[in-house]
């Protein structure tokens, strides 16, 4: 091989082909880079603005390279900025979101895993119909259930509370988590369940000892999906909570509706970034598994 390469004569055709290949690649990467810039530009602008001084923004406009650098806006947005009279920043709303998202994600994922297990491995008369009905929930826009939820939360005394939102997100999320888990569990061979039944394991033992240990790929998918979905959800938050009870997505709007003073674009930018951070982190750490889990069956 090496000898042939060393003794190779200059081949004009091969050189031309290599040049063509280079330019073709170059073009593809250039287009991709352009799109990446377009997608990233808004994020970049917000990041810059969160670090610029308010005067710099006022002088040079919203879209501009930073000529000043400071972290004050972040600190204000987190802890001291005043929204309609209270000067606590986004801190409280951030934790509201966290205490809403974590339990809602965990509970809806566990319920989805249970449902998926029953609907794939313990089928009963009508279980397919039930599954299809649950699937309807996937295609149902959230606003359809606004009125029923208003009624139910009123009945349970859960209006304007994080618990109410947890309940809503658990129920609204079940169709998705069930769909994910059920489709994953279908690919687990039924023989495993039969073998376990002969081995004397019951419904719960099979779930704990056989199904759950096989589940990490799909559980990561549902957790990433549910966490980002619930964290970013806005409609229920803004309708059913107010003031100090609001999750951060709803509170951000209150920030912009601030009042008579000049708009603090630096603080707003920082607040938006604080609100976007957790899903971003989740995706950064879980994204790889997310893609893998979506395409992978239970047993290789």
């Amino acid at each position, binding site marked *: 091989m090496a000898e042939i390469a060393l003794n190779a004569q200059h081949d004009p055709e091969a050189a031309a082909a290599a040049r063509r290949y280079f330019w073709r690649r170059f073009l593809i990467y250039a287009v991709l880079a352009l799109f990446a810039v377009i997608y990233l530009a808004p994020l970049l602008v917000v990041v810059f603005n969160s670090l610029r001084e308010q005067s710099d923004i006022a002088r040079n406009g919203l879209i501009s390279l930073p000529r000043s650098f400071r972290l004050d806006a972040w600190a204000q947005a987190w802890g001291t900025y005043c929204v309609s009279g209270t000067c606590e920043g986004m801190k409280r709303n951030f934790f509201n979101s966290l205490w809403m998202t974590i339990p809602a994600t965990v509970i809806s994922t566990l319920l989805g895993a249970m449902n998926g297990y029953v609907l794939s491995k313990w089928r009963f008369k009508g279980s397919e119909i039930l599954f299809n009905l649950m699937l309807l929930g996937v295609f149902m826009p959230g606003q359809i259930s606004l009125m029923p939820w208003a009624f139910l939360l009123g009945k349970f005394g859960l209006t304007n509370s994080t618990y109410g939102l947890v309940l809503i997100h658990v129920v609204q999320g079940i169709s998705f988590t069930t769909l994910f888990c059920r489709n994953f569990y279908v690919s687990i*061979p039924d*023989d*495993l369940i*039969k*073998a*376990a*039944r*002969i*081995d*004397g*394991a019951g419904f719960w*033992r099979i779930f704990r*000892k*056989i199904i759950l*240990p*096989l589940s990490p790929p799909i559980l990561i998918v549902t957790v990433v999906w549910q966490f980002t979905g619930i964290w970013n959800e806005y409609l229920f938050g803004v309708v059913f909570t107010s003031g100090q009870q609001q999750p951060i997505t709803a509170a951000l709007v209150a920030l912009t509706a601030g009042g008579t003073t000049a708009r603090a674009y630096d603080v707003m930018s920082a607040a938006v970034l604080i609100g976007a951070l957790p899903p971003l982190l989740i995706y950064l750490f879980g994204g790889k598994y997310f893609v893998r889990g979506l395409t992978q069956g239970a*047993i*290789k």
Partner: protein
Amino acid sequence: MSALMIRDLHKSYGGLEILAGINLEARTGEFVALVGPSGCGKSTLLAMIAGLETVTSGEIWIGDRLVNSVQPKDRDIAMVFQSYALYPTMTVRQNITFGMESRGVPKAEQAEAVKRVAALLQIEQLLNRKPGQLSGGQRQRVAMGRALVRDPKLFLFDEPLSNLDAKLRVDMRTEIKKLHHRVGKTTVYVTHDQVEAMTLASRIAVMNQGSVQQFDTPKRIYDRPTNMFVAGFMGSPAMNFIPARLTGATSIAVRAADGSDATLALAAPLPAGAPKDVVLGVRPEHIYRFTTDLKSRKPAVESMQAPVELVEPTGAETLAVLRLGDLEITGRFEPDDAPVMGETITLGIDMSRACLFDPTTKALL
């Protein structure tokens, strides 16, 4: 006492009948094979014995207990699946102890049982591996280990060898046979491979379309199949079916290649009431090259002419396709004495080993 008794068992899904009145029994220590083409209901029958499928009607007795509505875990059975069904996230050891753990067997006893079974199947060095790290043959052993550790009344095998390659399959077949000799447990073994059934079983139930066609020893099934289905299913190459006509109380005529009739004397007279037209069933190994020496050794051999259309040497034997009327039959010859293509040979058909069938009912006469 029989370890397994099945009485008039029916299974249907909606209007579709899968099993139509199965009667079967296995004596203690016996090895019963259920064999038949795919879709004949053999696996459903096994699943019903295991308790994984419900019974539509009929009775299943294991030992002296009616188990129709008993849970699988309480039936005192162990099962080996075609896919092995090893728990993928557990080690081999955990796979083997899973059942004992479910039943609350003390740890010390579990360890003892694992040791015994691992030694029996020579899988000691695999105990800490996961199923994904094992070869097909090793998985097969582990699956058997998981069943053996139970010491059950009844062993159920659902096509355990069909995922192995040809050579390994023959090796494992021998091992299963040895194992059964050593352990002596009553076994029900489902397979679609008639050779597996013949080599392993003490009795074979040949199934077709949801019913047992014949339940008998391998030899009886091979020599005296009750109908043309059993005759055609058991044996490879399959039995030749040659249309024939009765020409007297003890003779039949078959059409030769040139259109003339060849008369063959029967080894035994047909029962009264036999139809005029019959089907002569001859296994390939009961077709010879005719010699006077052969006739003196096997007096029931009858001769006729047949051209040789094709010769297939396999090494151990040579198969020859012979023309008879407008049909082709297969004969099995010694390689040294095999006919050559294009030759017309004088066949010797051993009529004492031949079967006669009724062409309308397909039953043995």
